[in-house]
């Protein structure tokens, strides 16, 4: 019984599958302003991709923080892309418009991108370096949590 519990604990502690170190799967999505954006067209810039859901509290809390990061670092070569994974496109668009963030918000109503990026929990934030490789991935968000990946952003911008 003890060994069974230990095995279960070990399996729950096992590292979640991640795409860090792999080339970021390409996608093209329609934005809030009607333009289509393709991830690979930002090759040469550091890209922060934030997958979010309207119904998730952490996602809503994270967006203003990402907006501040975008305003501060976009001149240094950072691109922030928000990707909504909500099924209800209309309500998601309304929510995104109400948030009024400065970075592009894209809408994914399919399932392929979620599978490609191994999405499990919202929000999920990934950092893609200038050569298109995923260098950092974080799940969830707590107030002030942006400091954790701010260091990563600065490091990638310096490369």
């Amino acid at each position: 019984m003890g060994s069974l519990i230990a095995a279960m604990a070990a399996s729950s502690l096992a590292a979640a599958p991640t795409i860090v170190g792999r080339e970021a799967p390409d996608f093209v999505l329609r934005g809030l302003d009607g333009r289509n954006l393709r991830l690979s067209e930002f090759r040469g810039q550091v890209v922060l991709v934030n997958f979010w859901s309207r119904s998730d509290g952490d996602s809503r809390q994270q967006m203003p923080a990402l907006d501040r990061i975008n305003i501060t670092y976009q001149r240094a070569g950072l691109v922030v892309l928000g990707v909504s994974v909500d099924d209800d496109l209309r309500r998601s668009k309304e929510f995104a418009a109400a948030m009024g963030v400065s970075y592009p918000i894209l809408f994914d109503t399919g399932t392929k991108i979620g599978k490609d990026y191994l999405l499990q929990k919202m929000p999920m934030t990934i950092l893609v370096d200038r050569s298109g490789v995923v260098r950092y991935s974080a799940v969830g968000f707590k107030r002030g949590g942006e400091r954790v990946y701010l260091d990563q952003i600065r490091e990638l911008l310096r490369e």
Partner: protein
Amino acid sequence: MNLKHRMVSLMVCGALLSPAWMAMGETPPPPAPDAPPAELKTLDQEVQGLKKDVVDLNKDLFVLQEQLLFPANTQVALYISMDVGTFFALDSVTVKIDNKEVKNYLYTAREADALLKGGVQQIYLGNLKVGKHELVAFFSGKGPVERDYKRGATINFDKGVGAKYLELKITDRVPKHQPEFMIKDWE
């Protein structure tokens, strides 16, 4: 041959083999401070050679993969081109073959611009059995006066034993101030 003759012949050989500065009795010039060492140069050449080999190998593998996945007797390739584009700004294309969606492609501003500049994109590559087939393409974007615009084009074609090439063409119909959508069968 005595010792004296040997010494003379060795000196002659040495003078011939040594560089001019040796024969002139000068000291060798010091290497240029910025010039990379010879070993580094050869290593760099080797790396460049390896990179070229990798590119060549990648090209060969791509061709082989195309031949295996899309054999010439079943291959169907669909291309898209755009001419002028005054009356239409392309946003997306959906392709159906025999009523089954095979491709849905969203165009970014950069991709649409590349098509307007004369680019031709292979939008779909697949396999089809020999016989009659129907291809329907739906084009959506902004039409005249920035209005949302959606049009379709259909072609019925015979797939023979060879590869089939089709082209989606978007052109401007100047007299009607409307875009025109055609599908051309490259026999």
